[in-house]
């Protein structure tokens, strides 16, 4: 076998992580080792300040150790590199470790610069760069009343905001005569000072700090060159950043006069086997202190290492942000330094808005702009600048208030215009994603990654998508996939009207090609909600996702989890014992789910029938945890036990769960019933939520928890049980009929023309005259319900599929478990490697549990 190259990365900041992530995606086999100086893997430094407003370290994390393990990336935390030995291609760490490399990538970023002011090393003199720094700031702030930020640049103002949020009386001290001198011109800087002062942060410009000495009223006193002074308890330095280039310097790589590791267009340093990316790299005498250019460098090196030809061509440093609640934008040549440049300036002293645009001497091109107080023109201005577009005859229109109503026409952007610079997504990429079936923002984001970096391009992305949708006309936008030029709703109609019973028939009458993993499960679900056939009946077999095929949820290692139905979360002691015994006998990992039932993990494909035989024998039914169907009806204990309860929420939940179990829908459905207004079952975060009242039941609809939480809408109040069930029947059936593929009720409601009022008219007032039909359809489904596992166990043909190999009773040897907290868990890639090398770890024998039906087979 060919030896794969050892790729070593120093630094796991935002850029280092992006590099690792991109390289792994391009080359699944590359040997990657990462040495991280910090105590955790990469996190989102751009949104670091969120840490003070409630974003946790976990939420800031860009990855997890599990994800690195799963991707087979070796990493070492708290691992500081001291030295590079280029002759032997080794790096040495402070703990004495040494690592060999074929290719070395320096992604060491930068550190906060602390100016050499006497007294700058006292305990409450801090910087703002890492999570650890923020912890220190929070601790110090708790013991302080007044805080000063030294440095009035972008980061300094962000830091000032943080101090203000921490409750400190906050000052900003800037050496230059204005704030944000790099990005703003004088007028912009003045307007910003004025606004920030009004927000309660005191701004001191033109002040050179000479010493930090003990204070009289506060802990410290800053002494300025002009003889004045300022008392403070905490000093935060934000006087710029310096690249971590010591490693490069000491091993003789070329570095810039003022710091930074010199790289060429391929991001190579002066040693061709060593690359530098991100904030430590110096390209054409420039350091780029933003993530987007760093990500671009990461992609360049990935391309270099995988035989590609991408090169770095510089990056735009325009910025738009909100500082202390004030909108600020800066584009290109903000200071009008280009020879012959002309400036247009607009100020509104009442609204405190300052706008300037810098145009070329012939007035045809936009060179730069400054916006303070209102950045609504930023996107359009930026695109005039970046895409070198011809300005309108009267360019001032672009910043005058009358023009703000006319946003940039995204359609006029060329296809190669960059929309998202973090992930290098051009307009053409978005159009292509839409061509291939992505039709809403969420799916475009996940498929192109646009807008998933700093988030600065969100508004622009939306306008590109909206315009593009408009230009395509509404009909085009929800084609299911390349095989059917229909939306899910239209297909359902074709199936029901045409009495179509199989995928093959639908494809030959209304589609083309062979189908795919999008249309097949969708049609499978449509057929199931239309005719309620057994999902594993022969013509439907190939339509189902593996989870539906094997009636269990596939986990990351190819094993499955098993979830028996526990309606309403009520279970007898006997049944609990059965579940426990099954878990013991098959050595399964057990966990209580959020839906009040028990998930059993680690079942191999060939074990599923035997496990279910035991469960079905004990009276369990499938929980449909694998299907796009009703999951659970959660309930609180209700009036039976609870001293506040006004109705029997458990009884109601069980009845409802049993009514709708197995119902196939465009997406999963969750419900809950609470016994009184205290709402212990959290019904208002469910697709269907029911809350007991003195007089009956309040019905809430279309709520959601999870990734996109939505509070449910109150649909009707004080219903008796019959009416309640009738309404739910109708709502669910309407949802099944009209929703798009994988559209939860929450999104369905948001897209529904007329919204909640319209839904009430259709369901309660029956304005469309379809209520009876909806109820009949639901009744038909309810009456034909059968437990799929029971049916499967009785069907030898279907059981045949539950084996790993058609020609051997062996088990999949890639499924390996180890023990953790007294239960099994999947072995990591590393552990599997050790196991293959015969280092003993616990391995489960499966041959002890032969499956009856299969034994006859062979």
């Amino acid at each position, binding site marked *: 076998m060919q030896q794969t190259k050892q790729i070593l990365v120093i630094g796991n900041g935002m850029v280092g992580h992006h590099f690792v992530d991109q390289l792994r995606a391009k080359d699944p086999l590359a040997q990657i080792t990462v040495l991280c100086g910090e105590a955790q893997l990469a996190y989102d430094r751009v949104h670091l300040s969120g840490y003070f407003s409630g974003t946790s370290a976990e939420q800031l994390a860009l990855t997890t150790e599990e994800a690195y393990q799963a991707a087979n990336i070796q990493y070492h935390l708290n691992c500081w590199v001291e030295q590079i030995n280029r002759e032997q291609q080794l790096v040495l760490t402070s703990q004495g470790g040494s690592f060999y490399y074929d290719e070395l990538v320096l992604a060491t970023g930068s550190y906060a610069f602390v100016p050499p002011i006497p007294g700058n090393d006292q305990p409450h003199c801090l910087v703002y760069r890492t999570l650890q720094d923020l912890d220190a700031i929070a601790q110090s702030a708790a013991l302080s009343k007044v805080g000063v930020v030294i440095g009035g640049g972008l980061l300094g103002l962000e830091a000032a905001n943080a101090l203000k949020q921490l409750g400190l009386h906050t000052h900003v001290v800037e050496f230059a005569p204005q704030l944000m001198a790099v990005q703003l011109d004088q007028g912009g800087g003045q307007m910003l000072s004025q606004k920030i002062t009004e927000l309660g942060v005191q701004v001191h410009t033109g002040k050179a700090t000479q010493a930090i000495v003990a204070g009289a009223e506060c802990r410290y006193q800053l002494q300025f060159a002009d003889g004045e002074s300022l008392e403070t308890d905490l000093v935060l330095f934000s006087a710029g950043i310096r690249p971590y280039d010591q490693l490069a310097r000491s091993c003789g790589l070329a570095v810039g006069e003022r710091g930074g590791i010199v790289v060429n267009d391929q991001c190579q340093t002066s040693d061709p086997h060593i690359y530098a990316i991100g904030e430590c790299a110096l390209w054409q005498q420039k350091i780029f202190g933003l993530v987007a250019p760093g990500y671009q460098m990461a992609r360049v090196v990935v391309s270099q290492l995988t035989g590609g030809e991408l090169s770095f061509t510089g990056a735009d440093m325009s910025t738009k942000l909100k500082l202390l609640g004030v909108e600020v934008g800066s584009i290109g040549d903000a200071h009008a330094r280009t020879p012959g440049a002309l400036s247009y300036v607009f100020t509104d002293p009442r609204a405190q808005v300052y706008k300037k645009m810098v145009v070329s001497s012939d007035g045809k091109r936009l060179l730069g702009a400054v916006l303070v107080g209102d950045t609504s023109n930023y996107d359009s201005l930026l695109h005039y600048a970046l895409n070198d577009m011809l300005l309108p005859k009267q360019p001032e229109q672009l910043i005058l208030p009358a023009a703000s109503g006319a946003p940039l026409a995204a359609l006029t952007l060329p296809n190669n215009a960059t929309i998202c610079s973090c992930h290098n997504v051009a307009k053409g990429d978005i159009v292509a994603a839409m061509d291939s079936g992505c039709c809403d923002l969420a799916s475009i984001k996940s498929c192109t990654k646009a807008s998933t970096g700093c988030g600065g391009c969100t508004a622009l992305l939306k306008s590109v998508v909206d315009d593009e949708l408009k230009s395509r006309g509404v009909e085009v936008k929800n084609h299911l996939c390349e095989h059917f030029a229909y939306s899910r709703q239209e297909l359902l109609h074709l199936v029901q009207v045409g009495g179509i019973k199989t995928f093959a028939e639908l494809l030959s009458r209304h589609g083309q090609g062979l*189908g795919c993993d999008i249309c097949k499960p969708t049609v499978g679900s449509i057929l199931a909600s239309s005719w309620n056939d057994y999902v594993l009946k022969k013509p439907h077999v190939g339509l189902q996702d593996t989870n539906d095929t094997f009636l269990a949820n596939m986990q990351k*290692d190819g094993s499955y989890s098993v979830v028996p139905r526990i309606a309403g979360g009520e279970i007898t002691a006997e049944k609990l014992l059965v579940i426990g015994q099954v878990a013991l006998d098959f050595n399964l990992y057990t966990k209580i789910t959020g839906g009040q039932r028990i998930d059993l993990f680690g079942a191999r494909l060939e074990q599923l029938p035997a496990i279910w035989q035991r469960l079905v024998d004990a009276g369990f039914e499938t929980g449909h945890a694998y299907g796009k169907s009703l999951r659970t009806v959660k309930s609180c204990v209700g009036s039976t036990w609870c001293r506040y309860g006004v109705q029997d929420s458990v009884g109601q939940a069980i009845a409802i769960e049993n009514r709708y179990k197995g119902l196939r829908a465009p997406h999963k459905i969750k419900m809950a019933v609470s016994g009184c207004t205290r709402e212990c079952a959290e019904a208002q975060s469910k697709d269907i939520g029911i809350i007991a009242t003195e007089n009956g039941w309040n019905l809430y609809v279309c709520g959601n928890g999870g990734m996109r939480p939505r509070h449910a809408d109150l649909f009707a109040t004080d219903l008796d049980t019959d009416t309640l069930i009738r309404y739910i029947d109708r709502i669910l059936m309407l949802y099944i009929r009209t929703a798009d593929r994988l559209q939860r009720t929450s999104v369905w409601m948001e897209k529904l023309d007329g919204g909640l009022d319209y839904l009430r008219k259709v369901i309660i007032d029956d304005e469309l005259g379809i209520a009876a039909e909806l109820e009949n359809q639901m009744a038909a489904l309810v009456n034909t319900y059968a437990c799929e596992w029971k049916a499967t166990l009785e069907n030898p043909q279907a059981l045949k599929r539950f084996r790993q190999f058609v020609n051997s009773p062996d088990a999949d040897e890639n499924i390996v478990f180890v023990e953790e907290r007294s239960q099994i868990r999947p072995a990591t890639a590393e552990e599997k490697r050790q196991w293959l090398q015969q280092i003993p770890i616990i391995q489960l024998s499966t041959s002890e549990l032969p499956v009856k039906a299969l034994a006859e087979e062979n």
Partner: protein
Amino acid sequence: MAWTDICAFEDLVENSGICALLNGQQVAVFLLELQGEPQIYAVGNYDPVGGANVLSRGILGSVGEQIVVASPLYKQHFDLTTGQCLEQPEVVIPVYGVKLQQGRLWLNAEQQNQQASAA
């Protein structure tokens, strides 16, 4: 050429896959109906992206002219005749030779990234 007798034709599942063990290698075998003709494809069962032996449990389909299986883990598509992953073209899975003889399916342990038909 090393041909191995695997199973009966009836053991294959129409428009879906099964997994066979061939000299210790896991092979995913798919049976497709193409213009009324059964076609059989055999590729590696290991999904190199997801890192698990699961491809035989993916959904079959077409992307343009290419006949593909979608991995049940992260939904990448693999071309059944070339073994190439559509989303990550540098990832290629093995393709094995297939023949039918007297109602039995045979696989060729030598990887050959070309398609075999059930003629």
